[in-house]
């Protein structure tokens, strides 16, 4: 496919690999924020291609992995109600909550439906005017405009049986939280290409300067990632701290203005809990008062939940780049994609699932 296949050319990849080797003189630790990139890196063995003194840490950039247990439990509550059709992206169905996941709700007779777009949920709402339809609105800035567009459409067409469990998280506050942690090891970031396609990267410049970390906005194909790593190491080696853009074919510095305006129309920053990272101030998006009628928590009177997570799971440390999946005693034994204990084993973009799928040799005996 055009704009995909050419970025998978093995010869060009080998040239970039040689160049990375040539310019690397010291050990460096780089974090890729986005789970889509983690998946591509592990799948293509990019981390194994790199010089030994380059360490890639896998960041918290998978909305499925960081959605709080509390929100999963709320989703389970809503999906269990007979008057509700609960719609979600497929990845969320097997994420363990305190007691169960959405798939078991479905097995017990709950009306849980997998959708590809919030617009699919809207269509289901139109076709089922006697039922309430709730969409599990997870995602980063990439997905936020789509969620808002669905809400605006619902308002425009007078749909009263549609609401959203708001779970949008923002990447930049999480990067700031990681960088301000005294145990931080991250020296540079590959910034998430598709998040930046929406938000642009002008906002990252102050973050890079404050914490003195280079950032390179990077795409998702193997050549994109290798080039992003090359540009990052070049900055580190030369002592430069800049926000550069590798993914120029899709990302502009100012972002996608209509999409940003769409987000701002209906959403505003709210504090949000992240699975594994706890509460991060202003790290989520919630509905503005003018649109609060579409808030599922409000509509169905959900309040604070007591939650519990598997005591064995170290996915929090993995999401912070402090541990790797095979450091977990349950990895590949008690915890597998079929029976996940933590969210990073569920989504194909979670580090545990990516290592399990493509690195089975690393599993404990």
């Amino acid at each position, binding site marked *: 496919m055009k704009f995909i296949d050419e970025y998978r050319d093995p010869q060009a990849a080998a040239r970039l690999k040689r160049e990375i080797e040539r310019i690397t003189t010291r050990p460096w630790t780089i974090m890729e924020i986005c789970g889509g990139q983690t998946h591509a890196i592990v799948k293509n063995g990019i981390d194994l291609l790199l010089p030994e003194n380059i360490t890639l840490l896998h960041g918290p950039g998978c909305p499925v992995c960081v959605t709080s247990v509390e929100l999963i439990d709320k989703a389970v509550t809503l999906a269990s109600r007979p008057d509700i059709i609960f719609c979600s992206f497929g990845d969320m169905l097997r994420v363990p909550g305190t007691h169960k996941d959405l798939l078991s709700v479905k097995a017990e007779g709950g009306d849980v439906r997998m959708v590809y777009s*919030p617009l699919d949920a809207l269509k289901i709402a139109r076709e089922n005017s006697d039922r309430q339809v709730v969409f599990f609105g997870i995602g980063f800035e990439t997905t936020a405009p789509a969620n808002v567009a669905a809400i605006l459409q619902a308002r425009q067409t007078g749909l009263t049986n549609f609401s959203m469990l708001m779970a949008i998280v923002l990447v930049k506050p999480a990067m700031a939280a990681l960088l301000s942690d005294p145990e931080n090891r991250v020296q540079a970031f590959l910034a998430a290409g598709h998040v930046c396609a929406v938000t642009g990267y002008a906002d990252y410049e102050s973050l890079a300067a404050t914490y003195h970390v280079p950032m390179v906005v990077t795409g998702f194909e193997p050549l994109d990632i290798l080039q992003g790593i090359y540009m990052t190491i070049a900055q580190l080696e030369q002592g430069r701290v800049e926000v550069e853009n590798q993914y120029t074919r899709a990302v502009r510095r100012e972002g996608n203005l209509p999409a940003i305006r769409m987000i701002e129309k209906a959403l505003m920053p709210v504090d949000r809990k992240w699975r594994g990272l706890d509460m991060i101030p202003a790290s989520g998006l919630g509905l503005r008062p003018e649109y609060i009628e579409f808030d599922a928590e409000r509509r169905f009177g959900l309040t604070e939940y007591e939650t519990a997570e598997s005591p064995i799971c170290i996915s929090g440390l993995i999401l912070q780049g402090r541990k790797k999946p095979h450091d977990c005693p349950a990895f590949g034994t008690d915890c597998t994609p079929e029976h996940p204990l933590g969210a990073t084993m569920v989504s194909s973009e979670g580090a545990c699932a990516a290592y399990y799928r493509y690195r089975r040799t690393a599993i404990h005996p």
Partner: protein
Amino acid sequence: MCLAVPGKLMSIEGDDPLLRTGRVSFGGIIKEVNLSLVPEVIVGDYLLVHAGFAISTIDEEEADRVFALLDEIDEKNEAADNAS
């Protein structure tokens, strides 16, 4: 989760800014995509599609940058080799 796939815009339907859709070809597979976030696009453009929405356009001139960088590196290395 933030997966977004490039496809070519084949046709546009509707004029309501929220509801405008396009038929987008992903290597021959055609899907309907909401265009509310990319009001400026025209038929023939390549779009980046995520969760049923086009979130960005692909700049075809910038698309070769990866390869231009490789050539630049090669030239620099050759020049350095010749100089030494």
